[in-house]
């Protein structure tokens, strides 16, 4: 990735989000756009095109209906441009259940990052987005 690429980072923890975006900028890795929630990210995705995304997914619902909210990924993949269909996306999750991994495979997710999340791992993932595309 280069400093003129735009990456969407969706993560509720402000300190992690800020650390990744500020370091990515200072090291010339990418311009990272921060969203604290899926709703905010959906609004941002409607306003500009991204070359990659790192998205924390949370569970919604309760009991047997409890599932990961993948609506943002579906929205990004629904973009009919080549960028939207092929955009590299990494997921942040508490755990990788077989059900989640199956859903992510269907959505062509390139990387799953499990807790504890480290800024360095997120930055390396963003830096490698370009390499995996080429």
């Amino acid at each position, binding site marked *: 990735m280069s400093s003129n690429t735009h990456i969407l980072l969706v993560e509720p923890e402000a*300190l*992690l989000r*800020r*650390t990744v975006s*500020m*370091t990515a900028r*200072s*090291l010339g890795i990418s311009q990272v756009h921060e969203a604290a929630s899926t709703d905010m990210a959906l609004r941002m995705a409607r306003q500009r095109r991204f070359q990659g995304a790192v998205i924390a997914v949370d569970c919604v619902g309760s009991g047997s209906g409890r599932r990961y909210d993948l609506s943002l990924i579906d929205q990004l993949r629904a973009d009919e441009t080549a960028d939207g269909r092929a955009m590299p996306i990494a997921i942040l999750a508490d755990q990788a259940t077989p059900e989640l991994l199956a859903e992510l495979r269907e959505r062509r997710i390139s990387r799953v990052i499990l807790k*504890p999340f*480290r*800024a*360095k791992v997120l*930055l*390396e993932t963003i830096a490698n987005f370009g390499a995996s595309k080429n």
Partner: protein
Amino acid sequence: MQVAPIPDNEAERLAALRALLILDTPPEQRFDKIVQFAATEFDVPVVVITLLDAERQWFKASVGTTVCETARDVSLCSHAILRPEVMLVPDTLQDPRFADNPLVTGDMNLRFYAGAPLTMPSGLRLGTLCLIDHRPRTLDAMELGILSTLRDLVVMELGEAGASNV
């Protein structure tokens, strides 16, 4: 052991530090969060936000130590504030400035040190955000970038502390 020289702008530096009205204040979550984040991010046992007073270094926030200040003449941070970039000491026992420092040879067992100077917008360096380990190690370019970012976040918080005291 080499004692760090006193910076040329020491009087101005101390005036700026004291104007923050932060010395000897209780812990604050906004600083505690940063040292806790750094300890996890870098997998180090000790992280400290130090402020260099005339005769001591005082800890505004820390992880992994119950000490709240040390004498300035043994402080590695007093060396770190002499330059704008991160001071990296991969192995203190291999560095003639620190090999016989009591923080290295004593209970603190300080073997690795990385100190990012807290440079205020005025250019004055008031202290450091520093990482300490009990074994030799180093930081790569990305880790140095992350440490610098966390330092910048500490400086922003200090700036807000200063603004609220005007």
